[in-house]
């Protein structure tokens, strides 16, 4: 472990000086993203109840349908249960990130200072999360476009259109990338906030 510097390392000082004028704007961006994604996440969480209702109806309707000799369930209903499930996790992922709900292996982090954790999170966001989101958006674009082009349907009788649900793939990762930007701003804030500088002592030997 490197000896603790008496004052913040030059990089941090430079960054702080350069970023301070921008800070209110960055902070506003982060707040706006958070509000946006939490609104979407809260709305999507009500879909959980809709999904369970549809799922139960599919069971009950099938048995009731046999009794009254009339088909009460359909492939459209069966597929809508699935699509609701897709909407729930695809639209909820960004809000889950905001609420720190994505599980992590925190044995090492437990021993780190808040600043070290902020640095690890910042690096993770910049080098893992955002590139992953960009990759997913990039590779799914063509598939989504060609699905729209032919207005792709379900291959099963009476099923639902597929192009809207396929569109949710790039959309979900775009929301996640946005949330990543907000998280990066929050971690940067914690990193650059004035205070005891021991946190910047080369975390985990890098």
């Amino acid at each position, binding site marked *: 472990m490197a000896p603790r510097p008496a004052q913040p390392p030059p990089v941090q000082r430079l960054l702080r000086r350069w970023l301070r004028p921008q800070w209110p704007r960055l902070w506003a961006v982060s707040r706006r993203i958070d509000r946006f994604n939490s609104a979407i996440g809260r709305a999507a969480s009500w879909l959980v109840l809709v999904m369970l209702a549809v799922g139960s109806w599919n069971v009950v309707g099938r048995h009731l349908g046999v009794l009254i000799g009339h088909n009460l369930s359909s492939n459209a209903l*069966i597929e809508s249960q699935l699509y609701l499930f897709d909407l729930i996790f695809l639209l909820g992922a960004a809000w889950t990130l905001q609420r720190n709900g994505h599980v992590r292996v925190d044995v090492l982090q437990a021993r780190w200072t808040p600043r070290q954790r902020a640095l690890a999170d910042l690096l993770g966001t910049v080098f893992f999360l955002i590139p992953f989101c960009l990759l997913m958006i990039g590779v799914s674009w063509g598939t989504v476009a060609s699905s729209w082009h*032919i207005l*792709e349907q379900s291959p*099963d009788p*009476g099923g639902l259109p597929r192009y809207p649900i396929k569109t949710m793939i790039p959309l979900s990762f775009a929301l996640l990338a946005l949330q990543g930007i907000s998280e990066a701003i929050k971690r940067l804030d914690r990193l650059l906030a004035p205070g005891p500088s021991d946190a910047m002592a080369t975390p985990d030997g890098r």
Partner: protein
Amino acid sequence: AGGQRSRPAVESDSDLPQIRWRMATSWPVSLDTIFGGAAMVCERVRLLSGGRFDIRPYAAGELVPGLEVLDAVQSGSVQCGHTAAYYYVGKNPAFAFATSVPFGLDAQQQNAWLYEGGGNAAVDRLFADFGARAFPAGNTGTQMGGWFKRQIDSPADLQGLKMRIPGLGGKVMAALGVNVQVLPGGEIFLALERGAIDAAEWTGPYDDEKLGLNRAADFYYHPGWWEPGPTVHALVNEEQWAALPKIYQDMFSSACHQANLRMLCRYEALNGTTLTRLLAGGTQLMTYSDEILQAARDASFQLYADSARGDADFRRLFEQWRGFRAELMAWNRTVYPLTRFLHQSEVS
């Protein structure tokens, strides 16, 4: 190391490039007859090219899910695939003809249509929209008509029946009043066994026995009128195809021809053996009544007429197919007395 080993003729033949492809398939490895068709294409190509043209087949889900093979070939993530065109009727309803349609062609007729009756050209035109070329590369032969928990004698018995049956066959069954269910392959057995559904179809005796369907239901109906002779296709990404040396193209299409014949032969041989075993094990072989068959046929051709009205590709293919089918049926009828005599006078 050893550069002195003897080499196959093709390899010493200088300038042919070393090419490695991936083949995504729609089949689990456990279905060895149908996955075997894909493996055979790869193996033949490797053999013919002295190992220089190397294709590796992947089971469903290894690279992409089984029902996404066309998408993978279209986007270029794999160079080729092995799949059934009717999985993609959601993209273009006319894909149904490329595989099999209810009351359509049996394996021999299907091959006649594809290779000599303009079928391949028509199918190629459909796949061209998806940047792919298609080669018949397997056929399962006439499939069975599904496993039923109880006997069905008339169309009235189909009302409200819960059956797992996908594709156009499912549409026809739905038109006859069946409650058509979508179930993943892994859930078919349990659903049928516990009675969550009353009937389920898979393929034929050999594959059905693997799924254990004979332990879940007693009545095994035939014929499988919704799939009289389904073709499976090898798909190749158009750009990758164009970049192949001519001799590799020839090797690939020859290998597909071979797989098309051999898969059918394997299914026919294995289904015969398996059916005998199933019957010995208590399975009851049942025939769809003429009444049900007529109702299903009428519903099928009504469905084709409706689809043709709504879709230009479907109309074009249906009309070409129907014309060929009429002539072929007329010809096959002249041979039918022998077939009938053979089946009726069978001595065991």
